[in-house]
Each structure stands twice: as structure tokens, then as C-alpha cells.
């Protein structure tokens, strides 16, 4: 009898002890292009800190609209630097917490092997019916694609062939189902082990368009949550940076 009581006490204290670090959960809104690295970072974050992160993926602009109308996200990883700035100005984010977590890389990609050459010359040559890109009004990768085409003097010629995804993930759907022969994506969507995993692609050299600054910010809803602040700290850690680079992103010079 005594032994049994002791047993329960031990079990109970062990259960309590495992919660001693006050493991908390934070709700993170993430731009679609960062889906793959984010999933890996979240797993590492949970392993390292004991906290956990619940992830929602979508278009950055949509998240801003939702956040300004009471969405419960605590951390926001945008695909650009303007959306976080706007949230701070409008009083929804904690001032001074914005930083660039990654520099985006644009890729011209096709599901068909050999279609896209490594100089992107196919853009000038043509021979395709649809060129997919993310809506430049909503998505930074769409803006970068338009800048590239304008710099090469191809925009007016290719404009009639353009089909637009609502975000970069939907753009990938159009291309991977073959409905658009090729299109502009984030490198992270098609990269595996440092190279383009399937189909064919041209990694657009930086400098052909304005840099894609991807910024994160702490939202006011998360200011008191230790998991939210820990998450942003973890995003800057060497462990996270290795994952970010692995998916083809650059990092801003400090």
C-alpha cells in the first residue's frame, strides 16, 4: 500500500518535472515560399528548446489582412520587408523586432527536363504557351520576376503568356501539373540537397532584380509568450541558418 502511494508520487513528480521548462506553443504565420525550411526549423526548434511552433502557410498580404483583423498569430515571417513594416506602423507588431531572416532566390523552372537551359535563354526564344508567376501585386517573387523580364526587355513580349498564381505555392501547382510549361518560383520550392531536384531550371543570378528581403517580426499577441520570442531567437541561430542556406536562400550581411 505504502509502496503504491510512493509510486504515484514519483510518477506525478516526474510528469510535473517534464513541464518544468514551461514548454509553450507559438502560432507562426509563414510566407508560402518558406514552407520547406520552416518545417525543418520548427522540428529543430522543438528539439532544442522544448517549445513548439504551430505553422500556417499562405500569402504574406493575406496574413496582414487577417492580422489587422484579429488573427491570433504571434510571429510573422513575411516574403518581403514591407508587410512587417506596415504591421509595426499600424500598431500590431512589437517595434524594433523586425529583421531579415533570408534573402530570396528566384528560379525559372519547368517540370520538363531539359526545357529550361542554365542561362534562361528560352525566355527570349519562346516556344511555350504559358509562363506562370506569382501575382506581382501580391507576391514579392512575382515582383522580382517582372523586374527581371523588364530588365531583359522581354516583358511586353511575354506578358500575354502570363498566368498568375495567387501565391508562390499555387504558381508551383500550375507548373508541376504541366498546365504552364514553365514559370518563376522560389528556389527553395524545387531544391533538394543543394540542386534542382527534378525538371529543369535556371537560378536567376542576384543583381538581375532588386533583392528579395524576407523579414520576420514579433506580433503584439506574442509579446508575452516565451515560445514566440524563443522562436525568433532560434531563427537567428547557427542551427537555423544552416537549414535556411540548405534551401538556397542567402543571408543578409550583418
Amino acid at each position, binding site marked *: 500500500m505504502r509502496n503504491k502511494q510512493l509510486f504515484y508520487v514519483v510518477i506525478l513528480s516526474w510528469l510535473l518535472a517534464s513541464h518544468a521548462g514551461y514548454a509553450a506553443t507559438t502560432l507562426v504565420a509563414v510566407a508560402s515560399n518558406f514552407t520547406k525550411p520552416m518545417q525543418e526549423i520548427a522540428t529543430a526548434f522543438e528539439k532544442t528548446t522544448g517549445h513548439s511552433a504551430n505553422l500556417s502557410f499562405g500569402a504574406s498580404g493575406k496574413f496582414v489582412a487577417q492580422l489587422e483583423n484579429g488573427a491570433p498569430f504571434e510571429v510573422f515571417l513575411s516574403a518581403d520587408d514591407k508587410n512587417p513594416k506596415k504591421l509595426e506602423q499600424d500598431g500590431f507588431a512589437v517595434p524594433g523586432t523586425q529583421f531579415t531572416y533570408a534573402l530570396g532566390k528566384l528560379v525559372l523552372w519547368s517540370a520538363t527536363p531539359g526545357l529550361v537551359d542554365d542561362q534562361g535563354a528560352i525566355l527570349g526564344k519562346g516556344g511555350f504557351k504559358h509562363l506562370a508567376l506569382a501575382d506581382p501585386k501580391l507576391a514579392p517573387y512575382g515582383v522580382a520576376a517582372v523586374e527581371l523580364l523588364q530588365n531583359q526587355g522581354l516583358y511586353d513580349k511575354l506578358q500575354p503568356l502570363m498566368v498568375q498564381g495567387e501565391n508562390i505555392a499555387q504558381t508551383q501547382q*500550375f507548373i508541376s501539373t504541366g498546365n*504552364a510549361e514553365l514559370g518563376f518560383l522560389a528556389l527553395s520550392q524545387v531544391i533538394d540537397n543543394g540542386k534542382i531536384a527534378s525538371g529543369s531550371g535556371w537560378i536567376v543570378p542576384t543583381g538581375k532584380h532588386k533583392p528579395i528581403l524576407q523579414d520576420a517580426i514579433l506580433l503584439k499577441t506574442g509579446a508575452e509568450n516565451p515560445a514566440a520570442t524563443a522562436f525568433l531567437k532560434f531563427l537567428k541561430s547557427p542551427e537555423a541558418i544552416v537549414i535556411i542556406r540548405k534551401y538556397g536562400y542567402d543571408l543578409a550581411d550583418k
Partner: protein
Amino acid sequence: MLTAADITTLWLTLRVAAISTVLMLLLGTPIAWWLAHTQSRWKGICNALVALPLVLPPSVLGFYLLILMGPRGPIGQLTTELGLGTLPFTFSGLVVASVLYSIPFVVQPLQTAFAAIGNHPLEAAATLRASPLDSFFSVVMPLARPGFLTATILGFAHTIGEFGVVLMVGGNIPGKTRVVSVQIYNHVEALEYEQAHLLAGGLLVFSFSVLLLMYTILKTSPVAHPFK
């Protein structure tokens, strides 16, 4: 004020809805007639198939259409063989998607109307030596007029309100596939709330007026029982 781009999307939406409604009536009338009269054991399955878009998420329909109508899908290969190219990102593709998505709104009221008429008026017409086609046009059509009105209005209005399927197979091309619901979504995402309000408010007033017209002037019953 409405921008030129907004007006383009409105005009395009009206065209998609008008063409789809005509096609749905042409296609839906024989289907509804058959469903209202058949004793076939396939009736249950066919009723279920027709009603499927009512309960399926548009993302399911959009996903399958994107794959089936794409260059590697069976429909895509067929349309390519026929020299039509693939349907996603085209106006015709939108019409096909809209017809599939909204057809229960046309078939069900018609089916109810045909079932309510029953066989007696037709038998009477037959004894007067009217051909089946003649009796359909001169007996059934006038009697089923409220059913046709409801089917037309609901089919048209529902196509105007379509969003998910169009978003998935349309490709958001101004003047070709960017309909008003997608335009509203884009305005909201781009934080252009003023533009969004104009279009969204307009659609709200339109939809309410259509239903009001149906329930007050045409006195349609809001509850239909098509599968009795």
C-alpha cells in the same frame, strides 16, 4: 470608383455566367427530365452525381479539373487531339468548370417541377395525338415555367458567386479568367479595402436582389424536395 480593371472583371463574370447558364439549361433539362421519370436502378447514383458539387469543396473539384484538363490528363489529351489545346487558363475552361460546379442548381428545380407535373398531362396530350416532343414544348414547358425561372436564376447567380474552382484553374488572367470574386480576393490581399468594398458590396446587393426577386415576385418556395 470602379477602375477599368474592375469593370473588365465584371463584364467577364457576366459573360461566363450567361454562357454557362445557357449550357446548363440545355444539358440540365434532359437530365432533370430523365431523373424525374426514370425507374432505373441507376437513378440513385445519378442523383448523387448531380448533387455532388453541392457538398464537395471547390478545392476538390478545382484540383481534379487542373489535373484532368492538364496536358497529362485524359481530358487535356482529348482536347489537344481535337486541336483545342488544354483548357486551364482559358475562358472555355472557366465555362466548363462553372457548368460542372453549378449544374445541381439548374437540375434540381427542374426535376422538382417535372415530377410535380406528373404523367397525366402528357397522357392527355398523347390521346390528342401530340408527339412527345410537341407535348414537351406545348404542355410541359409552360407548366414547368416556375422551375425554369428558378433554375435560370439560381444557375446564373451561383456562377457569378463562384470562387474556389476559378481560382484553381483560372490563372488570374485579366480579361480572360479573372472574375469578380477573384478580383475581390486580390483587392483584400493587397489591402485595397476601398476597391474590395465597392465590388463586394455590389455583389451583396446583386445576390440579395436576385433572391428577393425569386421569393417575392416569383413566389418560389425556398425549400425544394427534388429527390422524393
